[in-house]
């Protein structure tokens, strides 16, 4: 099991722990140094004094070593930050150049590419249509039943899952998403020099999200859908769900995510000082088609979420914001948000919008890379290393989030979910990650979890509402 963390402040935070240890060691040594010697020590007391002297010496030496360790911890954090930044910048530069080339080639050979696509379609479509004809059903069954066809199918299914769960492939996808603006620049024929200047001067997250919006818009138009133009709305389910005790650990937060028909659960608490505190939970994508059947927790909402930065909201992020307002959350009320997958992206976007007084956001497997959460909001992004979905949000480059990656063993995933296309994105895997992080004892994770739990001490559960997200 490997737990990897990315946080620009990690070095300083750990150095503070080292400093605390050093202070405690020195305090112990000083206490021994100031202890007074009995006027008439017996042999037993003399032996005790000898032990106390040994302890003082060890503690002094340890305090001095911890002082040096504190400095090397700060330095390790700085070096790692620089190395990580340099590596990411270099990778993004290469991916950006590649993306620009792909865009430019697409533009240059647009007619030829369209022609080739048309020829392939002209040849393939009739064959596909014919192949679907009932008259060919026995032949299709024969082919499907052939050992070679079965072997190829099994191989592709297994390898597909394997490749999609491979951290190297996931990193490549992350860089490809990061290069959306360069691809678009290539397609539009923007001169290379201007692309370089824009990349250096314009807010990268906004640029990438605008580019994704345009590319997704083009793609959805080509597909004959204009899903990006419609907005999902949160709809309250009749009746209220049971008010539950507040979630005080990552595992409890993950367990509190809605299941069944609900998409959002909003829990209200009254704090000891009479103020209101809210915990909001949002589930992930329910339907992977562009327009879901009876739900807007679909691919279309994912695309809409990918095109905004929080300055404006669309997709299920707008629905989440609407539900929060309708539930009665006032701008000054403290709010913690927890979301899985699409719910995580929506939660991070709502936090980025600044519409509510969000204190903490915990996202499990959310595509939150390019979402810039304000510095005064704590964002913990839990990402399974074998989960491709977080990579679809691009890289976390601005340092506004604490990212933790968990290597999930295959044994943590039950039989029901292990056969799914992206098992490491599902609840078994993230439930494992939440429990593992709770038990890790890492000071950074512990501090974030404690920050979520602290306001709820002595809180009274007032009530809870559940919401569905539907397209109108």
């Amino acid at each position, binding site marked *: 099991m490997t737990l990897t963390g*990315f946080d620009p402040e990690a070095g300083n935070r750990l150095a503070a722990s080292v400093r605390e240890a050093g202070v405690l060691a020195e305090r112990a040594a000083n206490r021994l140094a100031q*202890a007074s010697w009995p006027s008439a020590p017996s042999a037993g007391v003399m032996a005790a004094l000898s032990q*106390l*002297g040994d302890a003082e*010496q060890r503690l002094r030496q340890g305090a001095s070593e911890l002082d040096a360790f504190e400095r090397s911890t700060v330095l390790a954090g700085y070096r790692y930050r620089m190395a990580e930044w340099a590596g990411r910048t270099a990778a993004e530069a290469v991916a950006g150049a590649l993306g620009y080339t792909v865009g430019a080639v697409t533009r240059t050979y647009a007619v030829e590419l369209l022609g080739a696509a048309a020829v392939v379609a002209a040849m393939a479509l009739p064959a596909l249509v014919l192949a679907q004809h009932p008259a060919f059903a026995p032949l299709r069954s024969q082919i499907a039943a052939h050992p070679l066809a079965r072997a190829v199918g099994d191989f592709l299914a297994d390898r597909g899952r394997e490749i999609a769960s491979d951290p190297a492939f996931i990193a490549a996808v992350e860089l490809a998403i990061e290069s959306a603006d360069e691809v678009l620049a290539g397609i539009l024929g923007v001169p290379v020099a201007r692309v370089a200047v824009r990349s250096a001067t314009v807010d990268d997250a906004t640029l990438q999200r605008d580019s994704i919006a345009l590319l997704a818009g083009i793609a959805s138009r080509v597909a004959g859908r204009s899903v990006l133009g419609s907005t999902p709305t949160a709809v309250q389910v009749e009746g209220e769900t049971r008010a539950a005790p507040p979630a005080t650990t990552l595992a409890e937060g993950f367990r509190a995510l809605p299941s069944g028909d609900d998409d959002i659960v909003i829990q209200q608490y009254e704090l000891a000082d009479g103020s209101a505190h809210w915990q909001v939970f949002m589930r992930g994508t329910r339907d992977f088609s562009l327009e879901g059947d009876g739900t807007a927790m679909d691919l279309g909402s994912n695309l809409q979420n990918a095109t905004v930065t929080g300055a404006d909201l669309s997709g299920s992020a707008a629905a989440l914001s609407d539900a929060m307002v309708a539930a009665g959350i006032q701008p000054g009320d403290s709010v913690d948000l927890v979301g899985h997958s699409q719910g995580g992206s929506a939660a991070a976007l709502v936090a980025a919008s600044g519409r509510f007084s969000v204190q903490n956001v915990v996202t499990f497997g959310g595509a939150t890379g390019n979402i810039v959460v304000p510095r005064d909001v704590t964002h913990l992004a839990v990402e399974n290393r074998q989960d491709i979905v977080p990579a679809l949000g691009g890289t976390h480059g601005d340092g506004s989030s604490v990212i933790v990656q968990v290597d999930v063993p295959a044994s943590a995933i039950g039989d029901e979910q292990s056969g799914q296309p992206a098992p490491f994105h599902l609840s078994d895997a993230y439930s494992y990650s939440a429990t593992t992080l709770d038990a*890790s004892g890492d000071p950074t994770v512990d501090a974030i979890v404690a920050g979520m739990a602290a306001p709820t001490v002595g809180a009274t559960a007032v009530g809870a509402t559940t919401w569905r997200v539907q397209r109108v």
Partner: protein
Amino acid sequence: MTVAASKRLAGWVAPGMLVGMTATSVALSPASAAAAQQQLTALLTDARLARRSAEDAVAAIPCDGELDWFGAASDAWRGEGRAIRARIEPAVFDLDAAVRLIAAELAP
């Protein structure tokens, strides 16, 4: 006089002092015996408090359970923390032994 100084003294003159102090302790009046008890009680309190701080210091050294915050260098960093902890930890055992010895002296 500090414990460190007392340790040095103990190393130099302990054998001679032990003889003299045993004789002195025999001649102690009930009043000075009560004062000695008070001194030992104070020393026991100091030793116990020092032990608690030392134990907290050992527990506060980050070298177990932390995430890999420094990439490939994380293991080396944790190793350094563990090495320091291994050098400080015996102080807790020393203090445990000292507390036991002083408590035995105070026992009726």
